[in-house]
């Protein structure tokens, strides 16, 4: 967040899965809730957030379930209330924010290929749709024939994204990237100049992993933070 502020970000969108893997869920919720209350951010519901107040154990792997059970022990009622009140999807003038896909958002479909991106863009109907869920950064753009084409963005490059075509930005994850690079992912959109920049920023993932271990969360989750896989 401090890196984003350095870069002049005025408003943030947290695209879901606020809790579920990290070692300080209460702290994260409180920080985000404050930003949302101050209208400096919007936050969306992710499948791991939903799992806190709904039984989703059949859809998740044992590590994720173990983490959910542990996370529940760390949260009080107001934390859970905050998660329950998170919206599945937020539509703004020409932007749509959603955790998984604008196409049946509650089904937690992944946007990973041309087809899923097309469904997502069709359903949102907006020029810009920003999603999380999938852990790898990608930008889908509408080609001359209408199809959405996947592009692997290079961190730090300002990509002109003009609003007459549809774009689906998969921003990647802050906490658990899975492309072999442990650096946190985020993206900055500048509506006035119509540019989108994907970012990777290093953070102390060793100590984050340490906290995960010390919290008694599964070792694998700590290892994922370190390896970025």
């Amino acid at each position: 967040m401090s890196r984003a502020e350095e870069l002049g970000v005025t408003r943030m969108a947290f695209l879901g899965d606020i809790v579920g893997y990290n070692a300080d869920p209460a702290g994260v919720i409180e920080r985000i809730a404050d930003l949302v209350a101050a209208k400096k951010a919007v936050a969306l519901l992710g499948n791991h957030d939903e799992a806190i107040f709904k039984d989703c154990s059949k859809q998740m792997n044992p590590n994720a379930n173990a983490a959910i059970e542990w996370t529940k022990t760390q949260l009080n009622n107001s934390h859970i209330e905050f998660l329950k009140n998170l919206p599945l999807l937020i539509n703004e003038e020409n932007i749509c924010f959603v955790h998984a896909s604008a196409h049946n958002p509650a089904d937690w479909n992944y946007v990973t290929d041309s087809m899923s991106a097309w469904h997502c863009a069709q359903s949102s109907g907006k020029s810009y749709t920003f999603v999380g869920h999938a852990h790898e950064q990608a930008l889908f753009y509408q080609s001359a024939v209408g199809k959405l084409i996947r592009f692997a963005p290079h961190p730090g490059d300002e990509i002109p994204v003009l609003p007459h075509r549809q774009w689906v930005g998969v921003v990647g994850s802050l906490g658990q990237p899975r492309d072999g690079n442990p650096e946190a992912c985020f993206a900055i959109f500048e509506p006035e100049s119509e540019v989108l920049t994907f970012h990777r920023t290093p953070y102390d993932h060793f100590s984050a992993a340490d906290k995960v271990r010390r919290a008694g969360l599964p070792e694998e989750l700590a290892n994922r933070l370190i390896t970025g896989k």
Partner: protein
Amino acid sequence: MPINTDIEAVDDIFQEGKVVDGFTLGKEVHRGGMASLFSATKDGIEVPILLKIPRVGRDQPVESLIGFETELTILRSLKSPYVPKFLGAGNMATHPYIAMERVEGRPLEDLIKEGKVFTIDEVVQIGADLAQAVQSLHSQDAIHLDIKPENILIDDKGKLTLIDFGLSHHARYPDLLAEEMRKGIGSAPYISPEQVAGVRSDSRSDIYSIGVIMYELLTGELPFGNPQTMSGLRKRMWAEPFPPRAIRREIPRWLQEVVLRCLEPRAADRYQSATQLRQVLRDPEGVRITERGERVEPPSFWENLKGMFKAAGYEPSPSPRPSMGNYDAPLMIAAIDTRQSDEELRERMQSTAKNLLQAYPESRLICLSTIASTPTYEGNHESETASGIVRGHLVQLMDWAKPLKLPPERISYHVLEAMDPAARIVEFAKDNDASLILIGASHKLPNKVTPWRTSMTKIVEEAPCSVHIVRT
């Protein structure tokens, strides 16, 4: 596609004397099918300015807009003395324009149309300058893909500028023209065979186009004419061009060799970089003349037929990233035995790696460890599964490398599954073109021959590169 073509007022906005975003429009200097060009001035900008305005509106082709968007993206990102400076752009929906430096010079096309006969030296000079200009794009991960005499400006002093990036490709931006239905967009005489096949990511396509231009300047003819049909365009995938020396005898063999090599159908058979092309044009002594340079007869019917059969299975060569060519970036491998627990050796290996990496600022390190084999069944716990075990080893490698404090682009980690670790490490070093393997030899190991020790001797004997053994 929901492109807003409802911009009928563009012609009203852009008129001589009007002011748009601080740019005062001057005369309209050119009106083409895709765009109009106006001269302009703006306070604070010293260089002459050109505004490029796309032809948009109901009756205009969508391509002119995509080309405009592509040019905007790429021109904005380029920094090159051979490309007009980007000076600003207008809102695409309301008043689209690109403002750029107005470069002195006339299109090479004009000189050709006037019937100018180029001397051999002039052609060599233009070819070398073009190669240099193109290299400056390639080094920034951009490919022009529409190099033709119309898009090359030459000023009084002979300096070249490349213009029109409406069909260009940039590896770091979405390619808006990718998967276009129409294959082979570009100018028929100048595009490469792989462009005809729809490939837009090969920097060697620009080298092909330089070859066509040199051919044209030398002989006054186009190597494959100006075909208007797909089958006509495909001819360049198999046909040998008429040897330039058969048209103009004074062309030296070496130059014919260079031009024909640029025109090879398979990108892998051409010069692999624009720098290499520039080099041979500036130093003809270094050109090895093959059969290409000796040709004086037009290709026979039978040769053409053979070529045609070959082209039936034409496969474009794989395209390397334009900026590839990291010759001075050595790759080092640290083979780390995650099983051994000799702290002293560990530290010494770490400091050796650190010193070596400091000596070569462009170098990269791969931390390797080998495991015997992973279970084929999937256990209940993730630490028992193949991916879990590998990840466990990765963590140890990362832990090992932590004190080196290398940025992610300089380091990577691999866990190799192998029954014979030494053979696998050697193979890995070969595959990755490694320059050095770093291994540790501990004296604390028991005297009997341990597997790791035999591995070490094997690596020393069989490695394709230097092996650095760290001892305590």
